[in-house]
C-alpha cells in the first residue's frame, strides 16, 4: 500500500500516516436479536468495489473521518468528516 489519502483537515498524505479502521457498519438501534447482533459485531460485507470506511489520522492530526475507496484499485473517491446527525 502506498497510495495517498486526502485528510479532510491536512490534505493529501501518505497512507502510512493513517490507520484503517474497517468498513462503516450500521449499529443496531435497539435490542437486536442475537442474529442481528452477531451480524453487526462479526460480519463484514468485504466488497470488491467501492466501500465506505473509517480512517484515523494517527500520525497526523488525530482526526476520524470516512472515505469511499475502491477496494480493487485503492482509488480513493472521497474523504469527509462524519455528519454525526446522520444516523449510522
Amino acid at each position: 500500500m502506498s497510495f495517498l489519502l486526502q485528510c479532510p483537515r491536512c490534505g493529501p498524505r501518505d497512507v502510512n500516516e493513517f490507520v484503517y479502521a474497517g468498513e462503516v457498519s450500521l449499529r443496531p438501534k435497539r435490542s437486536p436479536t442475537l442474529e442481528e447482533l452477531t451480524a453487526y459485531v462479526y460480519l463484514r460485507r468485504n466488497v470488491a468495489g467501492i466501500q465506505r470506511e473509517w480512517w484515523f489520522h494517527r500520525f497526523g492530526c488525530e482526526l476520524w473521518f470516512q472515505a469511499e475507496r475502491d477496494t480493487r484499485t485503492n482509488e480513493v473517491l472521497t474523504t469527509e468528516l462524519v455528519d454525526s446527525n446522520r444516523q449510522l
Partner: protein
Amino acid sequence: MRLPPQPQERVNRERSLAFLFEGEPVQAFEGDTIASALFASGRRIFSRSFKYHRPRGLLCCSGHCPNCLVEVDGVPTVRACMEPARQGAQVKAQNVLGSLDRDLMSVVDKIGGPFLPVGFYYRTMMRPRRAWPLYERFLRSAAGLGRIDKHGKRTHRFDTEHRRAEVLVIGGGSSGLAAAHEAADAGRQVVLVDDGLAEVGPAPFEVLSPARAIGIYEGGLVPVDAGNVLYRFRAERIVVATGTIEQPLLFPGNDLVGVMLSGGARRLIDRWSLRPGERAVVLAAGGEAIAVDLRRAGTEIGRVFEIGDQAPKEIVARGRKGRLSSVAVDGEKVECDLLVMSGGRQPAYSLLAQAGARIEYDPARGIFVPRALPAGVEAAGSVTGERGPVVHPAPAYSGKGKCFVCICEDVTRKDVQRALAEGFDSIELAKRYTAVTMGPCQGRLCHLPSIRLFAGETGRGLGALGTTTARPPWAPVSLGLLAGRGHEPARRTSIHHRHEELGARMMWTGDWRRVHSYGDPAAEVRAVHEAVGVIDVSTLGKLLVRGPDAVAFLERLYPNRFADLRVGRVRYGVLGTDAGRIMDDGTIGRLAEEELYVTTTSTGAEVVFEWFQWWNAVWGFDVEVANLTGALAAVNVAGPRARELVGQLTSLDCSAEAFKYLDAKRAQVGGVPCLALRIGFVGELGYELHFPSSYGEYLWDTLLERGADLGIRPFGLEAQRILRLEKQHIIVGQDTDSESNTLDANMAWMVKLDKDDFVGKWALEHMHERGARERLVGFEMENGAVPAEGGQIVVDGRPAGRVTSARHSEALGKAIGLAWVPPELAEEGARIQIRVDGRLEQASVRLRPFYDPEGERVRS
C-alpha cells in the same frame, strides 16, 4: 597494463591508491572501480558461479550481471564493476572454498551435473528422513552467495526521507538528460536519478548519482536507493529513461572467462583504458564497428561473425581451466582469448511494467516493448523500444557442452528442456521451477533469452508466451536501507532517571520503560504493608473529558453508571466492545459537573483515546477529549503511613473523614499542584497523585526525603503485582484476554443493564441470559508450589481452565493466583488441580480477596 590515455578515460593517472584483494595489495588509479583495477592487475577470474562453481570473469561491466560480485569491507555481494576503488578497502572473493583460481567446490561442475539437475532439491535428499539435518547443514552452507557476519554490529546509519518532485527522471543517459533539461527549462522542479554509469555533469536541476530507483509502486511512489538514504519520491511526472540492456547469446561455453558483451568490452577500453583481450572473435550484428574499437585497443581480431536470422547455426566456445581458448562457428575454429558478443538490446522496461504499462512482444524488432503507459508516467529514449539496431539471434546455438540461459542461477539449456519435459510449460511456472530470472541480475540478461529459448523449444510464438511479472526491487538494495534507521521507540517517565540512579531493574510495558523492582520486591511489598511505599505510575493513560455531554458520553462508553457520581468522587470502570469483551480498565473521577478525569492502563492510553474519539465521531456528543498522558506524571503513595506522609506535605485535611476512600481532591502536595485520588489498587491506604510532568523528579525526591523517617521504599511492578494479587485485583490483558467479558470476570456489579444503551450492552444481555461459560476466581495452593502463568487447570484428568497470575505472597505465607475455571467450580473452597512442572498440585478456589477481605485497610 594500461593503454595510452583514451578520450573518455575516467581514471586520474596522477593519483594512485591501493586496496587489498584476498589479502594482496592491488594498485589502482583514482576513478577506477574495483573491477577495473583488478583487471588492470591481470586478474581475469572474478567469481565462482552459484551452483557449479565455474570460474566467471567480467561480462557486462555495467552492474547487470552476477560475475563480479565480491565482498567489500565485510559487505557481501557488491558489484565490483560499479564499486569505486577506495584506498585500503578489503576486498574478498565470495562463494569459493579455497581460492578463486582453485575452488574446491568446482568439483560440482565436473561430476555433479547429472546428479544436480534443475529442481534437484525438491526430489533428492528426502530419504532417510533422519538424515535431513545432515543434508540441511550441507545445503545451507553450499547455498547462497556471500556470507554475512552474524555477529556484525550496525556500522552506519540508514535513513528514509520523503521527497517530492514535479518531474522525476530515472536514467541519466542522453534521453533522460534531454527530458530533464527540457522540464527544467520550462521551470519545473526536476530530480534526475542515475546509477552512476552516465556522466552527468553540472546541471540546472538536482542530480542523485549514484542512486537507483528500486521500483514504481502504487500511487506513483518511487523509492530511490542513494546509498545510506532511501528517498521515497512522489512526483507529478515520472520519466523513465532506463535505456536498454545488451543481451547475451546462448551457445555452449557462453559463460567462459573471456566471453564479454560488447558494451563491457567497450567500457573497459573507453573508461579504464584497458585492453579486454589479446585476440578476439566478434559475434554480433554490426560486428565490424566493435572490431574497430577493439583494434584501437590493440586487440588482434581473429574473426568477425555477423549474427542474423539464418547464420550461424552452431557456436561452441571451448576453454582451458574455465578460460576461453577458442571458438568454433559452424565448424570454423578460431583461437582467441576474448569473445565479444551481442544478442541485441532489450528495453529495460521493468519500472514501466511495475507502474502499470502493458508489455508486448514486437515481432519486427524481436524484443518486448512497453505499451499503454499509465497517467503521469512517461518513457523516454531507447526504453520505448523504438530505436536501435534490430537483431534476431537464434534462441540457442547448438553444440556440445553447457549452454547457460541464466548465469546467476546456473540454469542451462538442458535444465529448461527438462523443465518443459516435466510439464512446466508456462513461462511463470518454468521461472519458479528453474529459478531463471530470479538471481542477482533479476532477468536483465536472461529474461529475453529464456523466453526466446522457451518459444524455440515449444514451437510457440514469443507473443503467445508472454513475459513474467516484473517486480520490485529493480536494483539490488541492502536490507539495512529498507529497515531504515534503528528505531526502538521507548517512552520514559519524567522520573525515569531517579529509578536508574536507584539501580532499578527496568522492563518493557508496551513502549514504556517501567521499574520491575529496585532489587528486592519482597522488601518492597513489606514496606507497603507495614509502612509506606511509592510507585511511579506516570505511564497510566490520562484523559480529560469535558463538555455538557461528558457524563452522558461516558455512560454510553462504560457499563457503569456515572450520572450519580458526585463531584469529587472516583469510580472504577471497565471498557468493553459491542462484542461484550473487555478492552481496558481504569478510574473515572468527576472533577466538576461537566469535567471527568479518566485513567486507562499503561498500554491502553492511545487505544482508549482513539476509541473515545471514534465513538464521538459517530455520536457527535458535545464533549471534548484531551489526552494528558504525557503532560502529567503520577505516583501512588500507599501503605498504613501514607496519610502521615502526604499529610505532612499538604494543607489538605487528610483525615479519614475529610478525605475518604474514592475521593478526588485538588491539592498542593509539597508545593506541587496535584489531583489526589484515594484509590487502592495495591490494597493499602493510598493516594494517587497526578501532577504536571515537569515536577516529576521534584515531587518524587520530596516524598522519599520526607518519608525516610517513616520507612518509605520505592516499589516497582513486581511488588505491585504481588500486592494487587493479594486483593484479587485484575490486570486487563494479564488476567483477561480478547474473549473475556465483565460478567464472567466477576464484575457484574458494575454492569448496569437497565441503562438505555452502552457499548456492549446487548452482548452482555445475551451473555447474562446464557450464563457464564467460565469464571475468573482466586486460588491458593495447598503445598506452596507456584504454578506458571498460563498453567493448566485440570478437572477429571482433562484441561478445564488456565492460570493467569500466580505469585508467592509473603504476607499470607501462601502461593496464590487467579485462574479461569468452569462456572461450577467458582465456589468458595472448591478443589481444583493445577499442573505445576508436570505434576498435578491441589489448590482451592477463593472468591474473596486473600488480604484484608473486608477492605478495612484500604478504606482506613
